[in-house]
């Protein structure tokens, strides 16, 4: 591989990796900090993407549409967590497996609802930066990937600051470390977790906007992202926002290099092989404690 091609592959990998980080960051909160087996996270991303598609039909920018939808998804997340907690989490030791089944059911309902409402055809959005590239000498970088890069960076910084600088953010970190301890301090861990799950879900329409900016979406697309999202969240070290960004970038670079070199079919195997290798050396993930 020539140096130029290698450089382009690296840049493309970083941009792609940031996109992976953005779609995984909500899961890093839900699964990484709250230990909720949220396999419906990719389905919520797709739901967010369809919401963005609907608003974009009126000419609103997809990313802005994602931000507009965020508060609604926050309340959706709060509602889903309250139900999950009341029916599964509170009941004891087998909540994990039953919770998994619950979120699988939620994902299925979301998918079927989208099929009934929108049909099964692929949907895309319109924006000035889609389908155009930035020319830097011989390099051409897709604007949509640059947008994904900027939004992912923004989301990571915002969530990192929120979790480290605000009272509620620290409470969320505390509930992840020692729920009983937090309760003894007089706080209600369930309310903290419900708030955190709301935040995790609120990231979905923004990441969903990136999903539909990057490529077409169809109701079943979430299934393709379950593996990737969990791979990034686990590779990051559960609950680490910086780690999520780093893990996404590592995954993106690995994929991009393999796709560029002779052996595109190996891209998923390399990505997941990387996950296994990291976990073998460092079971807590890259940034886990």
């Amino acid at each position, binding site marked *: 591989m020539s140096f130029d091609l290698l450089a382009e592959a690296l840049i493309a990998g970083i941009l792609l990796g940031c996109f992976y980080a953005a779609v995984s960051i909500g899961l890093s909160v839900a699964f990484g900090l709250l230990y909720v087996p949220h396999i419906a996270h990719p389905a919520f991303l797709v739901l967010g993407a369809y919401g963005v598609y609907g608003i974009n039909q009126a000419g609103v920018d997809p990313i802005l549409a994602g931000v507009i939808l965020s508060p609604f998804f926050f309340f959706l997340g709060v509602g889903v967590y309250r139900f999950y907690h009341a029916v599964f989490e509170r009941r004891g030791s087998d909540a994990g497996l039953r919770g998994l089944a619950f979120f699988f059911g939620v994902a299925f309902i979301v998918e079927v609802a989208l099929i009934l409402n929108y*049909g*099964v*055809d692929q949907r*895309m959005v319109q924006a000035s930066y889609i389908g155009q*590239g930035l020319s830097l000498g011989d390099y051409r970088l897709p604007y949509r*990937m640059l947008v994904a890069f900027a939004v992912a960076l923004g989301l990571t910084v915002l969530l990192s600051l929120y979790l480290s600088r605000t009272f509620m953010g620290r409470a969320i970190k505390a509930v992840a470390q020692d729920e009983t301890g937090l309760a003894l301090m007089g706080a209600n861990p369930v309310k903290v977790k419900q708030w955190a799950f709301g935040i995790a879900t609120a990231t979905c329409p923004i990441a969903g906007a990136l999903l539909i900016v990057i*490529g077409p979406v169809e109701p079943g697309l979430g299934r393709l992202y379950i593996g990737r999202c969990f791979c990034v969240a686990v590779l990051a070290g559960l609950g680490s926002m910086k780690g999520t960004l780093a893990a996404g970038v590592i995954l993106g670079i690995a994929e991009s290099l393999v*796709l560029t070199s002779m052996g*595109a079919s190996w891209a*998923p195997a390399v990505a997941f092989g990387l996950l296994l290798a990291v976990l073998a050396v460092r079971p807590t993930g890259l940034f886990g404690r």
Partner: protein
Amino acid sequence: MILNRVQACLALAASLAMPALGNAQNPIRVGLSIAQTGPLSGAGKSGLLALQIWRDDVNAKGGLLGRPVELVVYDDQSNPSTTPGIYTKLVDVDKADLLIAPYGTNLTAPVMPLVKQRDLLLMGNFSLDANAQIKHDKYFNNAPWSSAKAMAQAYLALTGQLGVKTIAILAADAEFAQTIAGGVRQGLKERGLESVYDQNYPPNTVDFSSMLRALRAKKPEAVFVASYPSDSAAIIRALNETGVGSSVKIFGGAMVGLQYTTLMESLGSMLNGVVNFHAWVPERTMDFPGVRDFLARYQAKAKDANVDALGFYIPPFDYAIGQILAQAVNATKSLDNKVLAKYLRENEMKTIAGNFRYGPTGEWASPRVIFVQFQDVLDKNTDQFRSAGKQVIVGPAAYKTAPVRPFSEIRR
């Protein structure tokens, strides 16, 4: 005494009439599985709507053999592992009289051993080479192509017209894409073409910029892509953003999805110059009797059914499956699979998708896959595709409506 005799005659007449009456109420069951969910459901749903229109048409005319036609349909979720079980149920439990294959090669291939073992008639539904290995004598395809090699040759003939010497191949890791890409690889030598890039990509690839960069570095003069709907859209976007270099004279091939209305509308002018396979487009050489009337009726129902709005790709050919079955049943006055298969082998089929005869493996004896080039396509406009001139036919010669123009020239 006389009264008793009259009563007896009436009773006899009634008992003789009963079977006929019962027969009229006993529907002919046409069984199929077709994707209503999953990645193939876009085509599956629009195909099913076409079959439902055929069922309603045929029933409005009194059905087949005086019996109404009923469709027994299951959703295979685009999953090949489900289809053998579904077809076993259709045959053994639902007692289907006639069988239509699932949409697509990947879903049909697992059903072929079953229908061969039971010696059943199976109407193929847009498969490619599904019967090439198993050679079942009661399989008949609706798609206007005969084999991967023949399909690829039409594209390779276009490269010859443009004086191309080098080619790059990009294909999805899936049955259909690999079959057609294999056909291209087989045909390279006879056309004097050199392959400079040949990659299979995994089905869940998100961004194709990396692959297009690698491809561009090889400076091919032709690019053959075999892809599925989401990939096709992502590749076209990356093509616009990253470019493939000015050396490329022809780009496209077997990109499934570029026939779907939502993608054509969303991609708009990004499609200009791309040459892709198709089954039917509104060009003058495709004006078969009844096709436009069917499409008008399909399009009127498509919006409510949430399916492909234009319906140029699959629907006319799924309606044709019904017409083929009806023609054979009406001509032979039989539902015997052996009798029907003999009729299908020996007679010309008259359908809205054109008239044709079957060859030895149940594919069209004279394939009619067309390659279209997107020209002068505008953004955000579905109606532009309803008339001629936007998807001109550049091959084969018998159906050509415009000469192929070099990709690099159009994109300039």
